[in-house]
């Protein structure tokens, strides 16, 4: 089944108009020997058959497992209104809003997204979105290092999402940027003494702090970090989970130069890893250094307030090889979803979301401590934490057989060789019933 509506009569008329004998004449620039090659694809399907095939594939996944796993992808409830609005053709079947006169829906929505990201992060300006949290961080580092042309070192602690670090290495390959890893202390936080004693400080352009970090811990040494960055005139890049921000301190109390992160928790399904949405917020003085689209407010010729893609002199279609980034299409529909999510939860809902996540994670921690796990790090955590137990891998395996995924094994991560440690997550969706199932299952597997 295809989507080309031409009747035989239409084709005849068109071919006649073009004074050709058949459609293949239009392809005469192509080497005859290469034209119409063999392609091995399955037989075509009707819509109905395709639906059945896809259901079959979807059913091969174990999406109904009880899943206490975060690590960059979070199981939050998506309000129905988010699907309702992002499912409107007007939003999802439009292109990038190049023609402002017929794109005010997308443009105003993105403006509202930018404003809410600024409100949450405490920063002055935000762009319209990035591909995901990892690429947003990688591009933030490039922005920061371009501000510090004489430096070529970015400091990246060991408690940063290891997949993000891999993406950073790919992005900076070929550029004059070197990564130096900052060790972590016994509390899972970055080692301040390493920073203070770092020899090559003159070469350092930026420091990245993930807060909460990959282990779920809030950074408590913020005052010392700020002092370090200000004394040495280093760009401070924060990586945050946006749903923590109604509760935890952020800019301008923390002197971040760039705040970036993954906004998947704001209305994106986990969807096996994507589409998600990165954001970058910064101080106004770096506005013109940002990558990607930015929507600004202006007027039309009749004086109506309206919105338009702006500051395009930064972008690839104008500046080409001098642009701030190559990004063109971003994740606009995800930004739309996030805008609806934040609007409907509103101030109170966003606070409650943060509270419930903290609460649920503590309840889950209590259960695990009761069952013989130990906390790997003491500290304030949001909705994730690391537990330790000497046969953790074995327990993890056995629970899987019972339909429960108790976090991820940190020894599996190629950067963090943390044997017998599990990174656990709870959210507002972690129900009492699932906690009870976990307790029962733990009793069965640990005996």
């Amino acid at each position, binding site marked *: *089944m295809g989507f*080309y509506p*031409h009747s035989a009569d*239409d084709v005849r008329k068109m071919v006649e*108009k073009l004074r050709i004998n058949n*459609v293949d004449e*239009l392809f*005469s*620039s*192509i080497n005859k020997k*290469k034209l119409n090659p063999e*392609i091995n694809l*399955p037989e075509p399907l009707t819509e109905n058959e*395709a639906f059945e095939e896809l*259901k079959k*594939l979807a059913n*091969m*996944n174990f999406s109904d497992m009880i899943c206490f796993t975060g690590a960059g992808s979070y199981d939050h409830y998506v309000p129905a209104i988010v699907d309702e609005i992002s499912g409107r053709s007007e939003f*999802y*079947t439009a292109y990038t809003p190049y023609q402002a006169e*017929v*794109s*005010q829906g997308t443009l105003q*929505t993105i403006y*509202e997204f930018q404003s*809410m990201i*600024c409100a949450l992060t405490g920063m002055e300006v935000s762009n*319209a979105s990035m591909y*995901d949290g990892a690429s947003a961080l990688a591009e933030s580092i490039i922005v920061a290092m371009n501000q510090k042309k004489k430096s070529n070192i970015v400091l990246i602690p060991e408690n940063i999402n290891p*997949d993000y670090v891999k993406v950073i290495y*790919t992005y900076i390959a070929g550029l004059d940027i070197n990564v130096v890893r900052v060790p972590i202390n016994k509390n899972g936080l970055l080692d301040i003494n390493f920073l203070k004693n770092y020899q090559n400080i003159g070469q350092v352009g930026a420091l990245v702090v993930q807060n909460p970090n990959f282990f779920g811990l809030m950074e*408590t040494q913020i005052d010392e970090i700020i002092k370090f960055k200000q004394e040495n005139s280093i760009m401070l890049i924060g990586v945050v989970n946006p749903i923590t921000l*109604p509760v935890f*301190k952020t800019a301008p*109390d923390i002197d971040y130069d760039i705040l970036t992160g993954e906004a998947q928790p704001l209305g994106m399904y*986990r*969807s*096996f890893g*994507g589409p*998600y949405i990165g954001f970058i917020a910064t101080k*106004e003085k770096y*506005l013109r250094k940002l990558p990607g689209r930015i*929507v600004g407010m*202006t007027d*039309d*010729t009749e004086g109506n307030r309206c919105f*338009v893609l702006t500051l395009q002199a930064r972008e690839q279609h104008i500046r*080409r*090889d001098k*642009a701030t980034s190559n990004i*063109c299409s971003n*994740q*606009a*529909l*995800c930004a*739309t979803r996030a*805008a609806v999510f934040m*609007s*409907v939860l509103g101030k109170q809902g966003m606070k409650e979301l943060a509270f419930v996540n903290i609460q649920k994670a503590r309840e889950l921690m209590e259960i695990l401590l009761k069952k013989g796990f130990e906390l790997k790090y003491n500290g304030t955590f949001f909705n994730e934490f690391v537990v330790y137990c000497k046969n953790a891998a074995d327990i993890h395996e056995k629970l*899987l057989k019972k339909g429960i995924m108790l976090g991820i094994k940190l020894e599996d991560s190629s950067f963090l060789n943390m044997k017998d440690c599990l990174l656990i997550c709870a959210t507002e969706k972690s129900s009492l019933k699932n906690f009870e199932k976990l307790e029962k299952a733990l009793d069965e597997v640990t005996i």
Partner: protein
Amino acid sequence: MKKLEKLIFEKSVQGSGTYRVSTSNSGAIINEIPDNLKRQDFDFPEVPENEVMRHFLKLSRLNFCVDEGFYPLGSCTMKYNPKINERVASLEGFNELHPLVPMDKCQGSLRLMYELSDYLKEILGMDSVSLQPVAGASGEMTGLKIIREYHKVKGNLHKKIIIMPDSAHGTNPASAMMAGFEVREVKSNDRGGVDIENLKSVIDDNVAGFMVTNPNTLGLYDENIEEIAALFHEKDALLYYDGANFNAIMGKVKPGDMGFDIVHLNLHKTFATPHGGGGPGAGPVGVKSKLSNFLPVPVISKKDNKYILDYSLQNSIGKVHAFYGNFAVLIKAYTYIRMLGKDGLRKSSEYAVLNANYIMERLKDKYSVPYKRTCMHEFVISAKKIKKETGISAMDIAKALLDKGYHAPTMYFPLIVEEALMIEPTETETLTTLDEFCQAMIEIYNMCYNNAEEMHSMPKNTPITRVDDVKAARNPKINYYKAKL
């Protein structure tokens, strides 16, 4: 007065939000958080759910979309997005799946990705595919990092130049810059293709690769592509194919057969996944076997009849996305390919090319077509002559189209055509739609000569009139709360 919508912030009334995440008194937990970590207060909208619904519904009505009408935006392939794609992508088995579940718990997703990679290999004439890049530009950066790594492994660190035509899309030079390359341009000839003589003069041993779109950004197929490929391969430079224009040649010719080593596709163009107002897209990258080992990890492999996330590629450039790319977009492209099959894909391209040539034929007496030859799925006209004679620019013509209920063509691109308008109808439009569009274009042409005054003030029937871009950029207002300060 136009029917515009207030900002969500202007609808906010303290205490009027209705949405509850928790019915218990969860706030007590705040006492357990150390004071020095706590945030004080923050600004945020408070709007009841029904008003939020009305707000975004009204906003949606200010958008034009391809489900509403013809969207001939060149280089963007705004074809119909089959609705079944949305339905299958929202199946719980897909969208409620965590990306880090063990491999035996995600065999459905992995199989879909494995098969999609196989289909794309067939369609492209490539040996391996990565589905990880999430847009065209993301695919470009991936491909260029592969080129860089390839030369590095061979010890050819002097290969620092990427050549591309002067008609290249902006992402091409920007991606080259992000991969640490320098860009060298090659001129286009009078047929719109690469000028071979000029190419010979710019090609040397420092060239790492060549990046091109074929059909190119003029909508023209470069018949010398195999000769060009040979020139680069002689210097051990790799050929990169920007697949933004792949809708012209699905099933007609494979980039692999033209001599390309690396290809990206825009699934959000050619393979009918919706563009979402600016993403999410997907930009899978295919490579010839000598480059398979350089792809981002993981790729999807098959072992003992199980599908696996395979991290074992020796020279991998690493990762370009935290997980495996925009999976939900991949589902839609997979479904599209399964429904069309090889004949459906081939016919789609044939009709896309037929539609474009038909419009060009009907308009060519009015609007000048700078390259007089058969076009592929799109073509470029120039309003240079009209502008000289009437003062009406490509922009004015585009805006007049908006008033007639069409989206505008791509304007002022490629840069080598003055007053360019690039028209891409796609295969999913009926002859009636094409005829009506041509009629509208002819009426606009007549207006340029009869009523130029009117042309400058269009559009009038759209939610807003032309916008003040200069004001937007001079005094940027991009954050409501900052504007309030």
